[in-house]
């Protein structure tokens, strides 16, 4: 008698987290099981001792933008407000592997943000100076310096968008996005957080201006507090309590090449030609594009965006000409008017908002998880997210990061 197929294989390893049935009530319900949602739950449990927490995810854990970003981590933003939260995040990244007890392949290989015009050069030098005043590592490098850091960049002066120099942040880098999510999920689960997949929130219940429960595809769940971490779907959720948000949901596309030998030692981003490139640990070239112009929830974008992105990549990296495209995809990003996030309280008691990270939420995962958990636990913003209120669009206290964020978070 022969044994069934696969009988010789070892037992399935232990799962990193359970799939519990939702309880009827939680102290805190986090809506959205992406990086931000899971990290928020982790810090709620770890830092604030709030462990009766559920993370509700309508699909599978970390299968939205957390699975679709280009994993770039940096903190070289212009304004003090942004420096605060992004640098806080970068510092947490630097200790995250030890904190979670899980490998995340965090690799500080540096980031070059290229300048292609006189205005780019001036803006970049200003940003370097602003970063240094805020204690963030940053330097201006000339084209020869760019070539030294990343030899495959085409720095010849006779191209459509010549490289006139770049800002360089040595502490920037990449991490393995899936491992980050799994590490947070495993650690949150160990602290007692319920991670509930295939559970879509269909309604938010309020009584006298205070949140009391969420309606879901798996029944009603009472909640002392509700925290929204739904990125591109934030507008849909907020509308359930009549709250309008100043964000637009757009497709953002990225792609990878087939696996190649190591050729690209750092991260290169170019706002002018709309591409950003790094090489993943296992060898794919990872390239991100600019957002598709139209609103969209379909997790796919238009082909001509990819075409433009490839044209830009080939001009910057002629060596890529023979590389084959392996796959393309899109995520739904929540773009705010000033390219800065919205993190804080809402007019509804016990309802907290974290959205508007647009194309750059991945790098903020530890920082916003920590600050948002603080905001929820204390019903008061953490100092690092205090500037990022919803009210700033009325008061005019915007944090304009289009220069540092632009196409390429």
């Amino acid at each position, binding site marked *: 008698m022969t044994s069934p197929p696969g009988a010789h294989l070892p037992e399935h390893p232990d799962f990193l987290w359970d799939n519990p049935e939702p309880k009827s009530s939680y102290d805190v319900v986090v809506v959205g099981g992406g990086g931000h949602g899971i990290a928020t739950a982790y810090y709620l449990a770890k830092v604030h001792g709030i462990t009766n927490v559920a993370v509700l995810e309508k699909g599978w854990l970390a299968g939205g933008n957390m699975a679709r970003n280009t994993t770039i981590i940096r903190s070289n933003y212009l304004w003090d407000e942004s420096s605060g939260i992004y640098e806080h995040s970068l510092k947490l990244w630097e200790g995250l592997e030890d904190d979670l007890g899980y490998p995340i392949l965090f690799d500080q290989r540096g980031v070059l943000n290229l300048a292609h015009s006189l205005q780019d050069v001036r803006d970049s030098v200003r940003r370097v100076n602003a970063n240094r005043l805020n204690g963030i590592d940053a330097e201006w490098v000339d084209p020869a310096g760019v070539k030294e850091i990343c030899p495959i960049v085409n720095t010849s002066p006779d191209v459509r968008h010549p490289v006139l120099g770049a800002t360089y942040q040595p502490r920037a880098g990449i991490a393995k996005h899936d491992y980050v999510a799994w590490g947070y999920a495993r650690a949150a689960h160990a602290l007692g957080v319920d991670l509930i997949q295939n559970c879509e929130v269909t309604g938010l219940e309020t009584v006298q201006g205070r949140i009391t429960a969420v309606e879901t595809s798996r029944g009603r769940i009472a909640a002392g507090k509700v925290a929204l971490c739904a990125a591109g*779907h934030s*507008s*849909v959720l907020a509308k359930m309590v009549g709250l*309008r*948000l*100043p*964000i*637009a*949901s757009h497709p953002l596309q990225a792609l990878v090449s087939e696996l190649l030998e190591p050729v690209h030692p750092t991260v290169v981003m170019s706002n002018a030609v709309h591409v950003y490139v790094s090489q993943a640990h296992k060898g794919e070239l990872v390239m991100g594009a600019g957002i598709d*112009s*139209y*609103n*969209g*929830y*379909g997790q*796919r974008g*238009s*082909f*001509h965006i990819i075409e433009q992105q490839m044209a830009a990549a080939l001009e910057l990296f002629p060596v890529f000409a023979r590389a084959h495209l392996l796959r393309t995809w899109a995520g739904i990003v929540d773009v705010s*008017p000033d390219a800065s996030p919205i993190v804080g309280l809402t007019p509804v008691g016990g309802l907290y908002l974290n959205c508007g990270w647009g194309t750059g939420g991945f790098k903020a995962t530890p920082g916003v998880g920590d600050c948002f958990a603080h905001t929820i636990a204390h019903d008061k913003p953490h100092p690092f997210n205090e500037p990022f209120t919803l009210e700033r*669009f*009325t*008061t*005019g206290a915007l944090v304009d990061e289009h220069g540092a964020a632009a196409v390429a978070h």
Partner: protein
Amino acid sequence: MQLIPCPWCGPREEAEFHYGGQAHVAYPGDPSALSDEEWARYVFFRENPSGPFAERWSHNAGCRRWFNAVRDTRTHDLLAVYRVGEPMPEVTA
């Protein structure tokens, strides 16, 4: 590539068009009477539905005229196109 049916030129490739965001957002009738809150609504807040959305497009590389469309943001299907000044047609998603 997606074809967009310009109401003057007929279907053309998407790359010929420029997106203009939400349609039917009127400039305030009496701007000086607006509160900060109302200005914020006008300047920064737009509908962002998952489903049919009335929006503006410009046929930049063609007739260069603006028009309105109702598009399902989940599927990107264009449910209707209509000229500026015409009312939004009834659509079923």
